[in-house]
């Protein structure tokens, strides 16, 4: 099993958790590796494949090409990739409908914000983060067509995912600008946003894994992207010999995407909000609402 990309306590840790759970419950051998750069994935996957690893999971879209190449060379091994589509019989692509989740938390944010202003802090301006942003904005507008969404990004290089001080300043400036809820999708920089929420006694929304616990009382909810579930399920199938290639999509429908409600934010999410969100959710599932997807825009 391979783990690459930025170690951010939300996205990758989620994958890692899923794998670890598999290790504990299913007794598999687990090995995870962080790659130093985008060109290293291939070598690492290959090393794994050459040894006795049966299933290699590439976490993150950056590994697409590596997985594509190596999967062809090792047709009898199994591969999975998170967040990217690879067409091969022995590769399973684990895709997430982030925009759906973002839509829901956008709606929650708009409902929780009395000022009708909400914020978004993304790590870098890249398509994946734009996808979050677009869904978020649409969800907010659904609740309140006049809602104002402040959209900010932390940086222009990979440092953006680790620049919490900057993220904090961005969030502070958004709170000052009237935002009452800020959605953070910026890797380790998220903590800067949460710190800002804590200091200003405002609300923030976490991303990928459930981050509600990090700042109880200040995190309205977290948009969940159940990479752990996807990974666990994939491992389970591989172990029981039921592995199948192809694209596997995780969205609201199969609980691959969601929003977190737990003891830390029960009080923040009022029953009305929850009811309304559930309503939106079923509308999306029923196809009554089509959430705009940045990947499909021109």
């Amino acid at each position, binding site marked *: 099993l391979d783990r690459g990309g930025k170690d951010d306590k939300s996205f990758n840790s989620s994958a890692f958790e899923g794998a670890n759970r598999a290790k504990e419950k299913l007794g598999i051998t687990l*090995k995870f*590796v*962080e*790659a*130093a*750069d*985008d*060109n*290293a994935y291939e*070598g*690492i996957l*290959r*090393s*794994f494949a050459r040894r006795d690893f049966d299933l290699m999971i590439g976490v993150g*879209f*950056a590994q*697409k*090409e590596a997985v594509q*190449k190596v999967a062809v*060379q090792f047709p009898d091994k199994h591969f999975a990739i998170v*967040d*990217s589509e690879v067409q091969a019989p022995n590769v399973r692509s684990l895709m997430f409908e982030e925009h759906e989740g973002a839509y829901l938390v956008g709606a929650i944010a708009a409902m929780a914000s009395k000022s009708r202003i909400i914020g978004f802090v993304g790590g*870098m*301006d*890249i*398509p*994946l983060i734009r*996808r979050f942003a677009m869904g978020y904005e649409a969800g907010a507008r659904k609740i309140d067509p006049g809602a104002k969404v402040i959209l900010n990004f932390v940086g*222009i*290089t*990979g440092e953006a995912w680790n620049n919490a001080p900057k993220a904090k300043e961005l969030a502070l400036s958004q709170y000052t600008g009237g935002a009452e809820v800020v959605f953070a999708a910026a890797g380790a920089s998220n903590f800067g946003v949460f710190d800002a929420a804590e200091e200003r006694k405002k609300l923030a929304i976490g991303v990928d894994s459930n981050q509600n616990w990090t700042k109880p009382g200040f995190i309205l909810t977290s948009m969940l992207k159940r990479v752990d579930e996807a990974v666990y399920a994939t491992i389970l199938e591989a172990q029981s010999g039921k592995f199948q290639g192809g694209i596997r999509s995780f969205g609201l429908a199969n609980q691959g995407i969601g929003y977190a409600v737990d003891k830390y934010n029960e009080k923040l999410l009022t029953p009305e909000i929850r009811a309304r969100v559930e309503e939106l959710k079923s509308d999306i599932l029923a196809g009554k609402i089509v959430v705009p997807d940045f*990947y499909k825009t*021109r």
Partner: protein
Amino acid sequence: MSGKSVQGLLSALFGVLVGLILGLLVVWGAGENPLTVLRILARGAFGSRYDLGMTLFYSTPLIFTGLSVAVVFRAGMFNIGAEGQLTVGTIAAAMAGILLPFLPMPIAPLVAWVCASLAGAAWGAIPGWLRARRGSHEVINTIMLNFVAAGLCSYFALYPLRNLQSQNPETRGIASQFKLAPFPLFEGAPVGWALPLALLMALFVWFLLWRTVIGFEWRAVGLNEVAARAAGIDVARARVGAFAFAGALAGMVGVAEVLGNSGRFRVGFSPEYGFMGIAVALLGRNHPAGVVAAALLLGALHKGAAELDLETDRVTRDLSLVFQGLIILCVSAEGWWFQNRRRKATAGSQKSTGVVPASNSP
């Protein structure tokens, strides 16, 4: 001359050795067996044709950036900006491949090469010009320009040239006739014509610096600006020229990356080749041959370290950074080891040489 360079090589190797030993001590401190780590490093770098290929793949950009830093160093300045220059060069190569799909095969890659070089050169000329004409220091300026380049290029990659088929922050793919196929020898590792190009450039840099008027003038400025100016050399032009040429060299990383590897510009593709280039140039004592050797060493280290995570529990890829840092540190003090030895040697064999001119004694 040759005695001196042999000595230089020896002392650089000595520095590398001391750095490696210190690094292994760190490993040992982290609770791993240093010998195992060394073996993993070696196998990861040279264990198979593919591994060797990947080592060469990493070395190729390092040759370019190392040469880039070395040329500027020879002209008496520091180029901390190879990272920005290579970023600009790479996007230029990608742009050529995307926007000029009508070019036929043999011409297409050449055009992309020229575009990458020119873009890098233009970017490199900026700090050279600022230093020559405005007197502001190139170290700060190149660092700032690295950020500016990152921002501009990510804009191009994400908006005008965005790849709609992918979730990656990257540009569209280049037309196929631009691509340089990898050599089959390396079992699929993306080592192609960029490597011979890099070696050719090393040769060219040597020729330029030591066999041409322009190179001589650059070096003269680097050795003694005042004397060079007094001898009628246009110091400002030399500064800008050396920096522009250095930028072009760094820009050629785009050939390796775009034409030889990914076929597009990807945001964040470089694991800081530009900064590693500083180390490469220093290790290689700012001589093209040394640069090639040092690039191989650091390329191997980078590739080998990727394997560490896989094989050990306690050390990670960050170790390769620690190794790099220690090696550069030790090599930077390398003059000291030798100076002391030389002083001892001369103190022993001293008789009546001395600067006191012979004609002075009766």
